[in-house]
């Protein structure tokens, strides 16, 4: 499997303004309980000129996913396109994946017996879970499966400034590279050359 075709997230921190649209869109789309945020926006050095920056963080669907490595019940599976998913019916809610994750992506709702941690929940890149695609049961457990419908994950679709980009690493790097390359090139003109017809 070539590295190039893996699905990746990229958050352009030149554009992220901590609007939390991604976080709320994800929560709404998958009908998550209010305390759980599959996607969070973090801001570092808030209020300090020249240093403040924000970025949106969720599961990064790592190539060598540490969560998958440490799971005692081996509930993770990594798709061909790089999306890291897990089976909530196998998960025992032990928390090891959280300890291993460099981004703190795994979340544990308190819906187990006696208010203990239930099965782990995390960003699925809107690709659902192991259950039948687009079934009601899949939606209940994992949320929408937009990838199966050919749609972009909800967070990137809703990003106010299009800071959050998702797609195959080839596409993502193409978009980001064209953003950098277009610096100073001027406004993206209308395709019919009307900007030349006027003196402005």
């Amino acid at each position, binding site marked *: 499997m070539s590295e190039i075709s893996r699905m990746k997230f990229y958050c352009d921190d030149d554009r992220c303004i901590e609007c939390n649209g991604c976080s709320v869109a994800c929560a709404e789309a998958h009908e998550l309980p209010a305390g759980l945020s599959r996607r969070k926006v973090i801001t570092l050095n808030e209020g300090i000129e020249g240093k403040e920056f924000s970025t949106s963080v969720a599961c990064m669907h790592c190539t060598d996913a*540490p969560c998958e*490595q440490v799971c*005692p019940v081996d509930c993770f599976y990594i798709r061909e396109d790089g999306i890291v998913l897990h089976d909530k019916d196998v998960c025992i809610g032990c*928390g090891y994946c959280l300890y291993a994750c460099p981004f*703190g992506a795994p979340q544990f709702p*308190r819906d*187990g*017996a*006696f208010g203990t941690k239930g099965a782990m929940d995390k960003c699925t890149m809107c690709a659902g879970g192991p259950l039948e695609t687009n079934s009601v049961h899949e939606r209940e457990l994992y949320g929408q499966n937009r990838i199966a419908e050919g749609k972009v994950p909800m967070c990137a679709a809703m990003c106010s400034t299009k800071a959050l980009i998702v797609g195959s690493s080839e596409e993502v790097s193409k978009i980001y590279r064209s953003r950098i390359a277009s610096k100073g090139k001027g406004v993206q003109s209308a395709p019919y050359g009307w900007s030349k017809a006027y003196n402005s």
Partner: protein
Amino acid sequence: MKKYLFLFIASLFLASVAFAADSQIWDAMRIQNIFGYGQEESLKLGPLFTLLQSTYFVPIFLAILVGVPAVFLVHYLIIGPKVFSHDGQPIFAFTLFKRAIHLIAAIAFIVLIPTGLMMVFGKYLGGGTLIEFARHFHAIATVMFAISVVPMFLFWFIDMLPTFDDVKWMFILGGYLSKEIKEIPAGKFNAGQKMWFWIATLGGFVMIATGAVMFYQDFDFGIAKSLGVSQIDLLRASAIVHNVLAFAVMAFFFTHVYMAAIAIKGAIYSMITGYKEHEEVKYLHSTWYKKLKKEGKV
């Protein structure tokens, strides 16, 4: 009895309600915690934990699970158990209270160790609901263990303090490597028992603490703040310590069970009736025997 059972279950519910309150790792605190994720202010335990858990823990647990009983099997086959006569006046060793506490602790361990191992080997057992129940029972048994380990620690503390006898005992490994019956330098408890005691109590406290940290995950015990580490580093450290200490606990537990129930014929009755065999005490706990004799208790 029913009242106590009810209180026990009620307290579990109450505890869970308290801890089901607003999670802190997932909001403002989390933003601070993000520094722990591999950056400057973290202890960089994440990669360590991942390495250990993915590559080492499972094989080591397997080695202990198979290896320790295997060693004892070999010992039993080659050297065999120590047999003492039942003549002589039995010596009173353990009060009813101590035996009861020990029983509770024993039951707790009998649940803790297997359920712990079920979690370690979860993927080979199919995961899912079975292992989830193992996790819950592990937690319930922890409560049981916690109730018993505190009194146990208190009433045997003095007896278990190290003496020079323990050094001598260690050199001959308690005499278990030979079939000879001779006097072994040991007080009421020998060095082996003492080692197990400290691992079970102090180690047990640590296991309870680290286990609780992992179980509650984000309830702020104040530990993280007082130690100056982030919550996630505390969790990672707890996971590593819990697993590593589990090696020791497991190994010594198997040893203790072997010693108590198999390697010394009839030793287990001391925990049921409270009386030890005269001969057993004279040889295996010779220092204590001599002391009792001086005091005129035998």
